[in-house]
């Protein structure tokens, strides 16, 4: 009898908790379609357009050194790169971190990748050609951006030895809803993608305190590669991170956003914005975000 009661109570609990989860259908219908007009999607897809739009409005992003849009421009590549030994080459419309080369030094006439790989001038020229061809964006024609390399803040770098970590803040109608940081691992091969095995660490957006962590869908307290304690830390420059996130959200006409930010040694930088931010952040935070979204607007609860 008491077992049955416990079971029933458990089911009722589960049902009420299920109601806190923002589902895919609801996210698409009530948040993305109503708040993000398709004509503004290029702001999220094209990093060059994002830079052109946001930097004048006071949003800090990595400094662009050079953009290559046409093959003939490559003639002056050697000259342009001559004095650079710390830069990133990325496709303007790439996705999932594909097509990015990170250079962290020079070795004679050649360049040294962050993983230790040596790139000749020909290698870089070939890579930029591929980007312009559209190899990384399934389109005929893209642009290659050469920009400053972000040096992570040491407190972040300590957690993320294998690549660039980012902070994801969900912002709805200019109000921050939920946050996390994604840390590349050995499993994710240096990529900050949760599905590929990056660590997700939940952050209390008011204080910058890490509260939960999950790795491949399982709760975890220590970093799987370094055994560093993940929970109970405060991320550096947190007030500046939130300020940048809010400034970004206010600058774009997209009203349901994932803002991706990197915390560099001298403060946060915007990496990109995402118009279809994923739902996994709820698992990382171990709570559904629907009550927060609905709490902002009572009428949504009333009109279902």
């Amino acid at each position, binding site marked *: 009898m008491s077992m049955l009661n416990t079971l029933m109570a458990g089911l009722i609990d*589960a049902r009420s908790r299920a109601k806190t989860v923002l*589902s895919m*259908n609801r996210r698409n219908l009530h948040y993305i379609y109503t708040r993000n007009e398709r004509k503004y999607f290029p702001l999220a897809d094209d990093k060059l357009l994002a830079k052109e739009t946001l930097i004048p409005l006071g949003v800090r992003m990595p400094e662009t050194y050079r953009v290559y849009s046409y093959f003939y421009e490559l003639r002056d590549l050697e000259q342009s790169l001559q004095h650079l030994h710390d830069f990133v080459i990325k496709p303007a419309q790439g996705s999932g971190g594909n097509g990015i080369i990170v250079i962290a030094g020079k070795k004679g006439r050649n360049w040294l990748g962050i993983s230790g790989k040596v790139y000749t001038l020909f290698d870089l020229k070939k890579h930029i050609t591929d980007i312009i061809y559209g190899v990384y964006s399934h389109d005929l024609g893209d642009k290659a951006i050469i920009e400053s390399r972000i040096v992570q803040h040491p407190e972040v770098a300590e957690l993320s030895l294998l690549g660039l970590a980012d902070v994801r803040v969900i912002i709805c109608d200019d109000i921050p809803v939920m946050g996390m940081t994604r840390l590349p691992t050995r499993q994710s091969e240096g990529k900050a993608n949760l599905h590929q095995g990056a660590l997700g660490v939940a952050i209390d957006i008011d204080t910058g305190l890490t509260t939960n962590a999950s790795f491949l869908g399982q709760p975890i307290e220590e970093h799987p590669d370094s055994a560093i304690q993940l929970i109970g830390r405060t991320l550096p420059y947190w007030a500046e991170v939130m300020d940048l996130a809010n400034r970004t959200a206010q600058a774009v006409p997209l009203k349901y956003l994932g803002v991706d930010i990197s915390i560099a040694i001298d403060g946060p930088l915007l990496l990109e914005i995402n118009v279809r931010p994923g739902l996994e952040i709820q698992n990382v935070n171990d709570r559904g975000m629907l009550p927060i979204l609905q709490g902002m607007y009572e009428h949504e609860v009333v009109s279902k």
Partner: protein
Amino acid sequence: MDSNSSNNTKRNIYIVVLAIMVLLPISVTAYKLYALDYPLAGLIPTHSYNVEVSMQTDGHGEAINIRTYLPKTDSRQSVDNEHNSSGAFTTEITSDQLNREATWHADSMRGQQSVLYAYSVRANHVRFNIPPALTIPDSYPAVLAPYLVAEPGIQKDDPEIEAALRRIVPIHNPTILEAVTRIHRELQDNMENRNFSGFTDALTALRLGEASCNGKSRLFVALLRKLNIPARLVGGLVMQSGSKRTSHQWIEVYVNGHWVPFDTINDHFAEIPANYLTLYYGDEVLFKHTANVNFQYFFKISKQLVTRPDAQSALSQSMLNVTNFYAFFERVGISQNLLTILLMLPLGALVTVVFRNVIGLETFGTFLPALIASAARDTGLLWGMIGFIAIIIVSAIVRRALDWLQLLHSPKMAIMLTTVVIVMMTITVGGVQLGLFELAHMTLFPIAILAITAERVALMESEQGGMKVVQISFMTLIVIAACYVVMDSLFMQSLILAFPELLLVVIALNLWLGKWIGIRVMEFLRFRRLIMKRAK
């Protein structure tokens, strides 16, 4: 507020459109059903049997004749798609009032020769009610005389038959119902069934107290004729899937202007099941052939579901009818088959939507599962799925090879499509060589579908990795199977062909699903830790 009132307008329009999409088709359907009297029963598919009679002889240079009976179309059974493949024999088919006879003749025949005669049959189950008050008439029209006389195997005037009749029907002047009931029950209940294929006459059956179908039927006919009730033997086939050599005999009794069937082997009283095929009437032999030619025969029977053509033609009689509407399509060369595929696509898409948005499976595109399911009509589900897997594997391998060569996207896709077409052609040729004719239809897999699949697979593999492609392929297969079951259902096809307005209901369901914000089944799994966690 402005946006609020525009939202309210939008919401009201949505509700009105939804209501129209539900009410309009339902009222048109109801109008057709009640006012125009559409035969609803005609929508349920019926069974059809393909019957193949295979006959074989071994000749030694002599002339050979084979004679058998072919079924006739009558009010209960309809026979069509007849095929005669007689090899060296010439065929002659003659028909009289009762029976249709086929004779195959060869002047001089050596070695093994065979004749194959095939047809398809649809038959109904028929049951008669015999009025209890009906008495045995004193006289009948002259045409019934042959059904009242004694025959070599039907010794109706033998004293033993007469004595048996007095024992079985002891009443004076019984009604027809009393007489047939008592005789049927006696033969069914007190006489053993024997699985014996030889000839048994009425008297022998009576003396032995046991008989096979032909003995029981002769005894039944003899007893009835003695009572002055016309009766006749019927020879035919009980149609079941498989091969068989045994034919069957039952009887028909003339009651009040109708020939009413009885079978005392399988206990069918005044009724005949839908799988009984009538081949001939009278005390005849099914096969006659020249002696010493080692004559062999067997029946091969297969069963399939078909729509009822009579119901389709009945529909064309009514106003607002469908067949006239479809005649427009026929005029420009669009077959009913193609039209059916077209009409079933929305249903397949609906099934896919349910799997994607309610259950939460990912598929390659929204239409792809429905398109592949309709392509699988010609190959069957299994080969359709194998074809789909083949496309995925081929395109994945080719993409890897082309990636290594570093080609541009569009030419790469064109090479991939070409490879897929070549592979499909090869499978077809291989299928024909191996006699797997379902495989041969692989070429009919519409090229457009191949193109979409190949391109989507390639994109997904490069963006999300091979594991993701395997996962989504598996989920797509599940959805393809579900689409196939719905789209290949003859009931659904007949329903939509008869009531194409129901497609608006499909729109209505999609309108509703388009606003459904519930949690997908797979999301319950994804967020299970969050949902099922213990209260703190």
